[in-house]
C-alpha cells in the first residue's frame, strides 16, 4: 500500500467540477491566480449534466413584467421564509447576467420568435423564466464551462477523490486525494479552497441523483469544523420512475406536467383536483409530491407503488416534439410508449436545500480560507427550492466564491502543513485494506433503505428515532468495512470512504428533522402537521468538542423593510 504522496501547489483549489466548481475556477482564472480543479468523476460528467428543465433568470424576454424583485419574492415564498434574503437578492439580480455570459461563452439557448432567449414556465414561478436548450440545459451548461476550462490555463485532475481537508489552527491549508486511475495519493496545497461537491441525494435509496452525490463535501467540511445549516430540508420530486426496478427514482421531468400531463390514481380519479383545486398538477413540488405519496399510502397506487401520469391525450406528434427525451427514456428503459400508455411515477429524492453555511456576499464558511458554493452550500433555497433556481445558484455563487477565494489567496501565504497529518490520513486510507473487511455496499444498502423508509417525504418522531438507532448501529458496522486488492480504481475503497461521509449527512438530516417540530416546505411531520411561527429559524449542525454532533438554532436574518414589499406576508392557519 502506498506511503508516499505527490504534492501539488496552487493559489486556489476547487473541489468539484460541476457547474459551481467550474464557474469558480473560471473566476479565479479571470483574476489571474493559479487554480486547480479536482473532481471525483471525469471532467464534464458531473451531476449537473442531468439537469433538464432550465435555468431561472428574470430576463423578461417572454413576460416583460418580470424583474428581479418578483424572482426575489418567489424564492422567499417558496423557501417558506427561512431563506437567506441576501442570497436571494444576489441570485435574483445576478442570474440574468450569468445567462448572457454563458451565451457569450458559446452556449446556445432556444429562442423567442424575435430572437431573444426563450423562457419556459415552471412550477411556482410567477412568470415564465427558465432559459433552456430543449430538455438538455444542464448538459449545455457543463459542456460550455468544460470547454472554457480546457481552453484556459486551468489545471484539472479528474477522477481525483478528495478524502479530507487538512486544517492547521482555524485555517484550511491542504487537501488529500486519491487519483483513482493511477492509485497515487496527492496532497494539494493552496492558499484558498472552494468546496463545490454537490448534494447527498445518494443517501436515499430512491433518488434521481447521480452516483457521485454522496455528500463527500459535507462530510469533509463537517470534520474540519464547518457549520452546516438546515440539513433536514430535502426536496422530493413528485415524479420519479417506478418500474422497472433498475431505474427506480430516475427523474420524469416537470415538463410533462407543464405540457399538460395529469396525475391519476388506480381508480382513474384525477386526485390533484382534491389536493390543489386551483394549481392542480402544477402546484409546488412539495404539494404534488405529498399528494402522490398519500394516494400510494392509502392504497390507490399501482402494484409497483406508484400513481399514473398520463399525457396520452396530447397526441403522439405533440409528445414526440415537446418531450423527446422523456419519450425515449420510457421507450428505452421501461418499454412504455408514453404516447399510448400511462407512466407510473412516485416521489423521488431530488435536491438538498441544506448544506454548508456560508456568508451570503462572499461564500465564506466559518473556517478560514474555505469557501463553498453550489448544492453543497445552503441558505438560498430555505425550506424548498424553486425548479430552475439551482442552475442559476451554481453559476452566480460559483463565480462569487471563486472571486473571493482569489482575493483571499492573493493576501495569504501558503500555510505550513504538519507532515504527521498527511501520514495519518494515508494510514486511514490504507486501513480499509483488510481481508476480513465487511462489504461496504451492504452497509450502504442498509443505510439508504433506512433513510428512504424512515426519513422520507412524511416524517414522524417514531420513525426518525428508529432511523437514529439504525444509523448509530451502522456507524459501528462502518468501522469494520474493508476491501481487497490494489488502491487503483478500487470501488470497494470508494464505498468505504463514501460511507463515512454518508453517515454524517444521514445523522444530520435525521436529527434536524427530529428537532424541527413543524411542517414547513419540503419538511413534513405527520405529528406536527402545521407550520409554526416559532420556527422561522435555521438549524445549525457542527462537530462538537467531544466529537459528537452538536445542534443549534438561530433566527433567520431579517430582511430590510423595503424588501418586505416584494414578498407576500406569511400566513398561519
Amino acid at each position: 500500500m502506498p506511503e508516499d504522496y505527490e504534492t501539488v501547489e496552487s493559489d486556489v483549489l476547487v473541489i468539484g467540477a460541476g457547474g459551481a466548481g467550474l464557474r469558480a475556477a473560471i473566476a479565479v482564472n479571470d483574476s489571474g491566480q493559479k487554480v486547480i480543479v479536482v473532481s471525483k468523476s471525469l471532467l464534464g460528467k458531473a451531476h449537473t449534466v442531468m439537469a433538464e428543465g432550465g435555468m431561472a433568470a428574470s430576463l423578461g424576454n417572454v413576460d416583460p413584467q418580470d424583474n428581479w424583485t418578483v424572482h426575489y419574492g418567489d424564492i422567499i415564498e417558496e423557501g417558506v421564509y427561512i431563506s437567506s434574503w441576501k442570497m436571494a437578492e444576489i441570485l435574483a439580480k445576478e442570474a440574468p447576467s450569468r445567462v448572457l455570459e454563458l451565451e457569450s461563452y458559446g452556449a446556445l439557448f432556444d429562442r423567442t420568435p424575435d430572437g431573444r432567449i426563450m423562457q419556459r414556465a415552471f412550477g411556482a414561478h410567477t412568470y415564465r423564466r427558465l432559459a433552456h436548450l430543449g430538455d438538455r440545459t444542464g448538459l449545455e451548461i457543463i459542456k460550455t464551462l468544460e470547454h472554457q476550462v480546457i481552453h484556459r490555463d486551468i489545471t484539472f485532475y479528474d477522477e481525483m477523490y478528495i478524502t479530507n481537508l487538512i486544517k492547521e489552527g482555524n485555517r484550511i491549508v491542504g487537501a488529500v486525494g486519491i487519483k483513482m486511475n493511477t492509485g497515487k495519493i496527492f496532497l494539494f496545497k493552496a492558499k484558498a479552497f472552494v468546496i463545490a461537491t454537490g448534494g447527498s441525494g445518494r443517501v436515499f435509496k430512491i433518488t434521481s441523483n447521480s452516483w457521485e452525490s454522496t455528500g463527500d463535501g459535507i462530510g469533509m467540511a463537517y470534520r474540519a469544523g464547518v457549520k452546516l445549516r438546515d440539513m433536514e430540508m430535502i426536496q422530493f420530486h413528485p415524479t420519479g420512475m417506478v418500474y422497472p426496478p433498475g431505474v427506480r427514482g430516475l427523474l420524469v421531468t416537470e415538463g410533462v406536467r407543464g405540457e399538460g400531463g395529469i396525475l391519476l390514481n388506480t381508480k382513474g380519479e384525477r386526485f390533484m383536483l382534491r389536493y390543489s383545486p386551483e394549481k392542480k398538477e402544477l402546484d409546488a413540488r412539495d404539494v404534488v409530491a405529498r399528494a402522490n405519496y398519500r394516494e400510494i399510502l392509502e392504497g390507490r397506487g399501482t402494484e409497483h407503488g406508484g400513481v399514473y401520469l398520463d399525457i396520452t391525450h396530447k397526441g403522439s406528434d405533440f409528445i414526440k416534439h415537446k418531450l423527446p427525451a422523456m419519450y425515449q427514456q420510457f421507450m428505452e428503459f421501461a418499454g412504455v410508449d408514453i404516447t399510448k400508455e400511462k407512466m407510473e411515477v412516485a416521489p423521488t429524492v431530488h435536491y438538498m436545500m441544506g448544506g454548508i453555511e456560508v456568508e451570503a456576499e462572499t461564500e465564506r464558511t466559518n473556517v478560514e480560507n474555505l469557501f463553498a458554493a453550489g448544492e453543497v452550500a445552503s441558505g438560498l433555497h430555505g425550506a424548498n427550492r424553486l425548479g430552475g433556481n439551482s442552475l442559476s445558484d451554481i453559476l452566480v455563487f460559483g463565480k462569487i466564491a471563486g472571486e473571493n477565494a482569489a482575493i483571499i489567496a492573493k493576501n495569504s501565504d501558503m500555510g505550513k502543513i504538519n507532515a504527521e497529518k498527511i501520514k495519518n490520513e494515508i494510514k486511514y486510507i490504507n486501513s480499509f485494506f483488510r481481508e476480513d473487511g465487511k462489504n461496504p455496499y451492504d452497509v450502504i444498502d442498509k443505510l439508504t433503505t433506512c433513510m428512504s423508509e424512515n426519513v422520507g417525504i412524511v416524517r414522524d418522531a417514531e420513525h426518525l428515532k428508529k432511523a437514529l438507532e439504525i444509523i448509530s448501529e451502522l456507524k459501528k458496522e462502518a468501522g469494520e468495512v474493508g476491501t481487497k486488492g490494489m488502491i487503483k480504481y478500487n470501488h470497494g475503497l470508494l464505498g468505504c470512504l463514501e460511507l463515512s461521509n454518508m453517515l454524517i449527512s444521514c445523522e444530520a438530516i435525521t436529527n434536524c428533522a427530529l428537532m424541527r417540530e413543524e411542517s414547513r416546505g419540503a419538511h413534513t411531520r405527520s405529528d406536527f402537521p402545521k407550520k409554526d411561527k416559532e420556527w422561522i429559524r435555521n438549524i445549525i449542525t457542527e462537530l462538537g468538542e467531544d466529537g459528537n454532533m452538536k445542534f443549534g438554532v438561530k433566527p433567520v436574518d431579517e430582511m430590510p423593510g423595503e424588501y418586505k414589499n416584494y414578498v407576500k406576508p406569511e400566513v398561519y392557519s
Partner: protein
Amino acid sequence: MAEKEIELKIMRQDPETDKGPRYENYKVPYVDGMVVLDAVRYVQEHTDPTLAIRWNCKAAKCGSCSAEINGMPKLMCKTRVDTIGDKITVSPMAAFPLIKDLVTDVSKNWEITRKIPMFTPKENMEKPWRINPKDVEKSKEFKKCIECGLCMDVCHVVREHYTPYFGPMHIVKAASWDMHPLDGVDRSKYLNKEGGLGYCNITKCCTEVCPEHIHITDNAIIPEKERAVDLQYDPIAMLIKGIRKKEKVMK
C-alpha cells in the same frame, strides 16, 4: 423471475500487474428491466469490489459508462439485458488505452479539444444577441453530444490505424461551434490539415452507434469536408471566398 440468471463475461486486466487480459465469468440474478450496468454493478457490489467500472448518472446522460457489449460499442446503462439475451460479454473500449478492467484512459480527448479553436463570436455584434429560433437547430443537434466516445471507439481510423485524425466526436464538437449562427471562425481547413479529416472515409459506423442519434457523418463530417474543399481544393470557390473574405479561417 428471481431464479433466472444471466451469464456475464467481463474482461479483467490491470495492465500494470497482469500480463494479458482475461475473461471472467459471473452469474447474476435477473431482475425485470435490468440494464447491463445493473448486472456489472451487481458483480462489483456482491462478488468482487475490485472490479473497475466507470459510471455516474445511470440515465444515459453523462456518457461515462461506454463499453463494448457483445462486440458493439454501447452505453452500459442504456442497454437492456432483455434486448441482447442472457449471455453477455462486456469489454472496455479498445480504441482507448486501458486503465483497469472496463475503465479506459480518455484523457487524449481533452488534448484534442484543446487544439480546436473554441467558439469565437463574430465581431461588432449588438448586445443582447439575437438569433432566429430556426437558426439554432443546426448546432443544437451536435449539442446533444454527451462525449461518450462510442463513435471514437467504433471508428476504424481511430481504432486500427495510426493517423492524425481527431475522430468523429471532435468533428461533432468543432461542427457545433462552426455551425453556431454567431460564430465567426471557420475550422474546416484546420480540421482537414491538422485534424486529419481526410482520413475519415464516410463509412458511417459512428452514426450507427451514437446513443444520442446524432447524424455524425451526414451533418457534421461531410459538411466540414465540403467546407474544407471550398477553402483548399476548389479554385472557383476559393476565388469567390477570397473576394468576399468575410469569415476568419483558421490556419
